[in-house]
């Protein structure tokens, strides 16, 4: 039974959300990237973040796994909770946070070496001493990169196609078995055929993970997500079930954006 069935949906809404932000404001030096954003991500749901370029989509994703604080000059106010616990409390180890809330960047840098080296990096960082090959195989299978068998492990990452690279970066994150998957622009820089195949992969992962993704392509948000958040100039203007937001937006700016009339 899928987590998105009607029955569990109501139950999920009562339970503690897996991620929540309350009054989140993020600044980079003088520039304010997010202003007073409050949002809840229920467990098992797929949430899309849409909005014009520069509206703070990536910043919101990055604040969910404490990746903004590695940018010099950034500062943050507000509270983010992960399964009810303050993400920034002293007991939270940022490295552990990032293992449990995995993120695939739009600019997904390949690590030097083979595909296996790429997958093993995160596992070794965690101190994993078990069957690295087994874990890597499972992750590559989940990401749809195992069709040609084990030889993919020894392939140099730099020799992969754009689509395979994207899949490998997803596999790199999946290997750590995160609770939440953050994906920034899952299909940017891919040609249409590859984009639709990667989209199917995200669709397949919906059953196993809570997913939050940011996209410039709102039709993609419509195809993939249960809930959609509309960000505009760093403010969360609207958040709700994707169906409702697309067919009956409450905020006129949301409607302007969706219909391509935003000034």
């Amino acid at each position: 039974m899928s987590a998105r069935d009607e029955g569990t949906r109501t139950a999920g809404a009562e339970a503690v959300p897996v991620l929540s932000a309350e009054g989140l404001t993020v600044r980079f030096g003088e520039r304010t990237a997010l202003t007073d954003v409050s949002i809840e991500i229920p467990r098992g749901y797929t949430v899309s973040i849409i909005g014009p370029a520069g509206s703070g989509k990536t910043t919101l994703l990055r604040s969910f796994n404490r990746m903004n604080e590695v940018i010099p000059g950034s500062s943050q106010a507000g509270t983010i909770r992960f399964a009810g616990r303050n993400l920034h409390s002293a007991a939270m180890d940022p490295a552990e946070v990032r293992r449990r809330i995995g993120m695939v960047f739009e600019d997904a840098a390949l690590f030097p070496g083979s595909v296996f080296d790429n997958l093993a990096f995160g596992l070794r960082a965690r101190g994993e001493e078990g069957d690295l090959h087994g874990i890597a195989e499972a992750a590559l299978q989940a990401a749809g990169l195992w069709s040609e068998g084990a030889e993919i492990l020894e392939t140099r990452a730099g020799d992969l196609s754009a689509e395979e690279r994207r899949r490998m970066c997803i596999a790199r994150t999946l290997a750590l078995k995160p609770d939440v998957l953050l994906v920034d622009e899952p299909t940017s820089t891919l040609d249409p055929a590859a984009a639709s195949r990667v989209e199917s992969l995200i669709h397949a992962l919906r059953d196993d993970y809570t997913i939050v993704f940011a996209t410039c392509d709102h039709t993609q948000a419509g195809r993939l997500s249960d809930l959609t958040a509309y960000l505009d100039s760093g403010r969360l203007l609207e958040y709700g079930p994707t169906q409702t937001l697309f067919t009956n937006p409450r905020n006129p700016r949301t409607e302007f954006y969706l219909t391509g009339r935003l000034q």
Partner: protein
Amino acid sequence: MTAFRSSTGAHPRSDPRERLMGGLLLGCTALAVASAAAVIGALGLETVRFFADVPLSRFLADLAWTPSAEEPGFGILPLLAGTAQIAWGATVMALPVALVLAVFLEFYAGKRTASVMNAAVAALSSVPAVVYGYFALNFVTPALKGVWPGLEAFNGISACLVVGLMILPTIVVLSREALGAVPRSVLRQAVALGATRERAVLRLALPAAWLGVLGSVVLAMTRAVGETMIVTLAAGNPTGVSWNPLEGVRTLTSFLAQASMGDLAPGSIEYGACFAVAAVLLLLTFGMHALGRALVSRGQADAPGGSRS
């Protein structure tokens, strides 16, 4: 509402290894800073002692620098004048060749020519100064004597030529970096709009890179100011100031090299004088290097946008 400061992502709490490495690296930095402080402190201390004996007014206003003479002169100006002559002279010699070479290598030279010239420039930049000094004294000066029979054995022109040769790689390499930072897409765009390649290079790339080029010249001049061996060997050690390039020149650096060859008794006035000259040299080169670096990085920040392919 809580505010979080940005951190570098180091988590000293979590892992003893993490803590150890962070500590080790911080220790290296502390050592580097401590050695820098020791250098500046040592120079500063002796310089302060020197100025207790010699008033600053004499240092700035005396017209001769003869600290060990019977009636000593303590004016820094003659040394500064000599240093300026060598630095300007060398830059004037090197700049035209270096700049043309940088433009040529960046935009015109074929692959083979470029790799030969890169190797030649790298070779020039790794020749030790003392070897250049030998070359100036035993080859350039005799050769110039054929042109100007009145040339003295120790003269400024030979030193300028060879210091110019020594700083040439600095200008070529850094100017090429500045020219290379102008996005190729911008130049292609210009050519696509009907400009000739020459127009794109001369009217677009050069103006866009000029701050970086200027920075490379300042950095090269900094090296010329600090150059010791060539000047000591080829330009002699005259006490007077002459603006004739056929005569000898004494610079801040060559005074230091010459003075240290005698026996410097600590506490003597000559010993203090060396530290005062070294402190002036430190301030001068530190400032020039800072200016050069600022120009280079401003040049990069101001470069026109575009894809850097």
